[in-house]
């Protein structure tokens, strides 16, 4: 697009800046609280600038050995979970995207039906239990492996690939697997990147399966440990102690926890961004 900048561009930038401000302020607010002195925060003095800067809250969070251990756990669960999910979802979406897949509508319904009707926590627990997956990493990765929502999106993108490409591949002697791996996937990098993001973040933030299927504290992922810390400010005990910095530190700790939890995920996006390049399908179709 080589047209000159016009009024619209300026308005656009202005809108973006406004959005940035609205998005940034709460994040900034949480940030300055997390590095401020607890007493000042309790008195509501911290609004635009930090007061009494210290890293006590972060120290408190990171000193806890279960935080670091659960961090490592979560990295492992996320890596494995994303891999399993991507593979299973692709194996589901690709056939459903092929027009000649016999029984396609029926299978689609079969899958989509599960979006509306869920067996429930207890029955699923029993299935997981009878497969011996309790207290193993598999309980966190397998039962939630395929998100039908994601699968449908993936399928939609796969369907956009022109049939002509498939046909020429067939003529060249490629079977379905080869077509998938050599033609469809390379052309689908944007959606694959998106799915990678969705699953990775979903796994990173997940806590409910871990809560239900794990009993061993050393296996807990980050979110379980962190949620407890975050909620502690809301929980009032019946007695409090003098010199108990907890009462004043709870806000600072809460926000320190937030940043500790989201930092790695923020770093993924820049890497994934390069797949959102326009024209990934360029050159293949026309001609």
């Amino acid at each position: 697009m080589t047209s000159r900048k016009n009024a619209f561009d300026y308005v656009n930038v202005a809108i973006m800046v406004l959005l940035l401000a609205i998005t940034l302020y709460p994040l900034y607010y949480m940030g300055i609280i997390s590095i401020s002195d607890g007493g000042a925060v309790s008195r509501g003095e911290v609004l635009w600038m930090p007061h009494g800067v210290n890293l006590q809250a972060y120290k408190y969070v990171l000193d806890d050995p279960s935080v670091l251990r659960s961090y490592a756990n979560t990295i492992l669960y996320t890596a494995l979970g994303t891999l399993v999910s991507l593979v299973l979802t692709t194996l589901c979406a690709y056939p459903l995207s092929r027009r000649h897949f016999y029984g396609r509508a029926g299978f689609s319904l079969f899958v989509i039906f599960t979006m509306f009707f869920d067996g429930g926590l207890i029955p699923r627990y029993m299935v997981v239990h009878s497969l011996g997956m309790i207290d193993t990493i598999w309980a966190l990765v397998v039962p939630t492996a395929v998100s039908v929502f994601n699968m449908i999106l993936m399928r939609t993108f796969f369907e956009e690939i022109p049939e002509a490409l498939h046909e020429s591949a067939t003529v060249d002697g490629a079977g379905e697997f080869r077509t998938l791996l050599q033609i469809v996937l390379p052309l689908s990098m944007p959606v694959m990147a998106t799915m990678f993001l969705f699953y990775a973040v979903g796994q990173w933030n997940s806590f409910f399966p871990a809560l239900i299927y794990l009993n061993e504290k050393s296996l807990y992922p980050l979110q379980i440990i962190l949620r407890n810390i975050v909620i502690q400010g809301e929980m009032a005990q019946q007695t409090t102690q003098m010199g108990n910095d907890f009462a004043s530190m709870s806000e600072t700790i809460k926000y320190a926890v937030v940043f500790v939890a989201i930092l790695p995920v923020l770093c993924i996006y820049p890497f994934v961004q390069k797949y959102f390049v326009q024209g990934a399908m360029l050159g293949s179709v026309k001609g």
Partner: protein
Amino acid sequence: MAKPKSRFAAAGTMLSVILLGGLLAGCSGGGSDGGSAASGGDGNGSGSANKPLTLTWMRYEHPSQAVVEDSQAVQEILKRQNVKLNLQSVPQSNYDDKKKTLIATNTIPDVMLVKQDDIQNYADTGVFLDLTPYLDKMPNFQKVLEEHPDIKKNYIDGKLYGFPLVTKWDIQAGQIPMIRTDLLQKLGIPTPTTYEELYQALKKMKEAYPDSYPFAARAANGLTGTENLINPIAFGFGSGYTTFNGTKVYYDPATQKYEFGPYSPQFKEAIAWLHKLYSEKLLDQDYTTATSQTWQEKLNSGKSFYFQDNNGFASSFNPILQQKDPNAKFDMIPVLASPSGVKRNLVYSLDHLSESYVISAKVKDPDRVIQFIDWMYGEEGTNLTSLGIENQDYTIENGEYKMSQELMDKYKDKPSPYYAIESALGLGYLGLALNYDDHPNVPFQGEDGLRWSETNLKNVDAGINFRFTNDPPFNKEEREKLKQLRTELDSFITSNMDKFIIKDGALESDWDSFVQQCKEKGADELVQIYNDALARVQS
């Protein structure tokens, strides 16, 4: 054409097989590691003379006090009782979900902390061990039963299924009037002795500090902001609002029965008083959504000067306030008299009878387990799980508890030394104790904290302070009825009650029809069910 196709088909097949195989391998591999620790009786509970009795022991973990798997108490218990505890802790915020899943699938650990509700709901499923036949082999627990007769309310159809958490000694806190006494002095306001005088005092404070909202309230302990605000006030006026778990009836010590607050004129008076405060902006305008956090902020920052909620919090407010203003001080004032002359306050129960440890019906060697639990209620067990090791962690001098200096020094740099100690030693209500002595709290209470506790205790004896009581047990039909009644009635009351506090004129025009509708929705039945159940316990 065939060759490349089949090669990829083969690869594809292999991929699927590997995936499935990996799944199954992972499953069986996981299955054999240490087993599903939650299922009771996995080689546990068998204790011969030398082999330790291994018990899986599950409780929730409060974020302030981490559950340490090999805390001092756990180690000592192994040494002294030859019992190995495999502690499983779940964050309190989601403990209910976990607990219910385990109960519903009959995979509970050997010993698990549950609420009385869970026992009521699932006792007849046979998942929990019936403890009644073992009780006469438990001398220590018998003593506890005598000292805490309210445990009777935990019996279901004459049977006991859970070992409740009792308290031997604790700081007594309650929803007591706490006010900024320094401001009373500064502004020349006499200490209020009635609710009317309190209103006048708050008004004068607002005049001096127009941006303030002198009376602050919050949601806490499972009750909404509204419930937590109305409870002490209505009670102080001679009526009441909810039980400790939010049911819209209350136990009145004056009549010794459950009553429905809104029926009494004193309740209406209390609401009128609250309305007066709200409309003159003396009461926090956001009280309906106030959290503990925002409430503390207001009181810490001089935005609010009065609260009638857990008085213990003043111990943490005062130091924070004094960082800015050395004279600032929250202090307790004596019970306020209502317009009709009633003088009473609500305080917290010291015991935690609504929480009990249940034992899995599948446990092996129940006698051994029972014996161990009895020990936990006895003096040795109590002291180990409440105070620590004598002459190392504490000493008793002239009958007085004194924490050892080494212990205090070891943890003095932590944000909360008290909880750090409790955590490391495995002590307390949030730790392993079944019979709990909170003397370790004393060094951290400060003079005021201890003085308030003593005053509160004195007033309990004097018939001024009354503790929250537990619900009586209900039978199946009653529980069904309660479910239906409460669903509709609760929503109706909750969505309407604030209107009378917030909206001008609502009390005059709509109160009577509100009460009438409560009646139609079953308020009478609700009270009746509670009183019938209570009568059964007392007979």
